[in-house]
């Protein structure tokens, strides 16, 4: 773990004004490297999602700077480049719900991400099949979302997020809609992805039972980010 994929410094985001002012991010700095799996914990309203959307270039902070792959793309509330293009090529998103396009098959949902990035043809199709196979869905490639279980849908969503080999994968409570067994499967999958695909993975989660999977754990409260080491007891529990 030595190449920094995403780095944010002194991010500040405030919602509302005057009496209703709410500081969602207060001088937040965070970084993640290739192969790293980081967890983002915190109660509801602590600013986790705001941070995730800022790191995904969906919601710009008022202050602070963000670099991706060493290139500064956000500075003091301003985009320095086309953020859509950055999202298309460098960021993969996974959400609580799979958010698959209902009128596309599993393969087509993955192909869509490639097509948006101008990757079409047999090569793109092979990539989609390869990813779905990697995630254990080789026999489900031509199924529509409604024909897949919740866990399978979530794996298609992960395949879609990985399609363009983004250096950064952001996941917002990806296991919330799954049972504990499938939830752990997904978290372990993120770890595998981070190590095998050399991506940085940042996961917002409430599931403390899977913390042993993460290399880094960040906690947020009232817009302030702190970092804590992995819980040794969880690691022991997991290995047992």
């Amino acid at each position, binding site marked *: 773990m030595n190449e920094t994929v995403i780095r944010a410094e002194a991010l500040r985001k405030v919602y509302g004004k005057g009496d209703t002012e709410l500081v969602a991010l207060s001088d937040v700095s965070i970084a993640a490297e290739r192969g790293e799996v980081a967890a983002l914990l915190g109660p509801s309203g602590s600013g986790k999602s705001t941070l995730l*959307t800022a790191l*995904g270039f*969906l919601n710009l902070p008022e202050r602070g700077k963000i670099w991706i792959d060493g290139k500064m793309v956000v500075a003091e509330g301003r985009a320095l480049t086309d953020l859509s*293009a950055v999202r298309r*090529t460098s960021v993969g*998103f996974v959400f609580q719900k799979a958010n698959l*396009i209902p*009128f596309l098959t599993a393969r087509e949902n993955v192909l*869509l991400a490639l097509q*948006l990035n101008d990757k079409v043809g047999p090569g793109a199709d092979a990539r989609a099949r390869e990813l779905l196979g990697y995630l254990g869905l080789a026999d489900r490639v031509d199924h529509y979302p409604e024909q897949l279980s919740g866990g399978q849908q979530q794996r298609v969503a992960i395949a879609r997020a990985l399609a363009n080999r983004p250096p950064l994968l952001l996941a917002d409570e990806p296991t919330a809609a799954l049972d504990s067994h499938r939830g752990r499967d997904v978290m372990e999958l993120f770890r595998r992805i981070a190590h095998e695909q050399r991506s940085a993975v940042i996961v917002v989660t409430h599931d403390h039972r899977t913390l042993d999977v993460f290399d880094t754990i960040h906690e947020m409260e009232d817009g302030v980010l702190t970092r804590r080491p992995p819980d040794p007891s969880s690691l022991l529990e997991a290995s047992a």
Partner: protein
Amino acid sequence: MNLAWKDIRRQKLRFVFTGLGLGLLFAVVLAMGGIYRGMVADATVLIDAVGADLWVVQRDTRGPFAERSTVPRALEDRLRVVDGVASAERFTYATIQRGDVANPVRIGVVGLSWPSNRGERLPLVAGRALGGAHREMLVDRTLGLDLGAHMPLGDDVYEVVGITRGFVSSGGDGLAFVTERDADAILGWMAPESRRLAAGLRPEVLPSAVVVKLLPGVRAEDVARRLGAWSDVTVWTAGEQRDLLLRGVIDKARQQIGLFRTLLSIVSAIIVALILYNMTVAKSHEIALLKLMGARTRVVVGMILQQSLLLGAIGYGMAVVIGSVAFEHFPRRVVVGPVELGGLAVLVAVISILASAAGILRALRIPPTLVLAG
């Protein structure tokens, strides 16, 4: 992978029904154009069939199709000796109405200059030309008479010996062709009591015009200029007669149909816009997802525009099918040719593009973070 087509394929039934509704609307737009073309064709069919180079009519009138015109019988002979004239024939035309109040039958009676004109130049779909000078008639099939049918008109009963197709007046009334003498009898008929009161005098029915054909190489304008010096007649070339008919008789109908067509086009555009707007709203989540994944604006705009055009294409196809089945049952002729079909295709494309604007504007306002809201 075409997102617009994939989405349509998922909701086939919805699209088919939407397309059917639009198809009906577009079919009415198509019918409006076809009805106008039909009116033009109906109005000019007789002029074209007569094939005259000049129409010589009563002084200062616009001819038998525009207003009442009578010319002396001897005019025919006077015209025959004019330099450049190949033939001159009397032409009698008037509309009569028979039947009762509930089922009126309107007939455009055309008197042919017997025996030089027996109607053999008319394109008959059944039967033969007039074989006798009296009590025979050629009728258009819109009058609903069969070959051999008998029809009492005036003091006589006429036998249908030939059937034409598409020969109607500018008002859409079927034409009946009889000899000029029979036309006189039909148009000048009076009830016996009226005849008695008129002391047996029957009003003379004069020809409406004399139609002139010129020798090859003779310019119609030159002869018309010469005949224009005659104090009792006015001369119109075939083109002028045609223009007079179209501009005078059916121009208001053209304007009315044009306005109605414009209104229908606007209504169609509004309906397509509403459909697309609702479809876009229903797809807000998917559009937000596309944006979140970094889709370029043209991808989102293209999807909505393509759906709009596909919807328009489905509606257009339905309109063509509906038209081909239904128009022949309309009471008046509906002429739909490549011009009408091409015009509708362009109109549908314009409507689809304009109507997609509402959906596109809506889609552009959808934030990618909508996905995170669940």
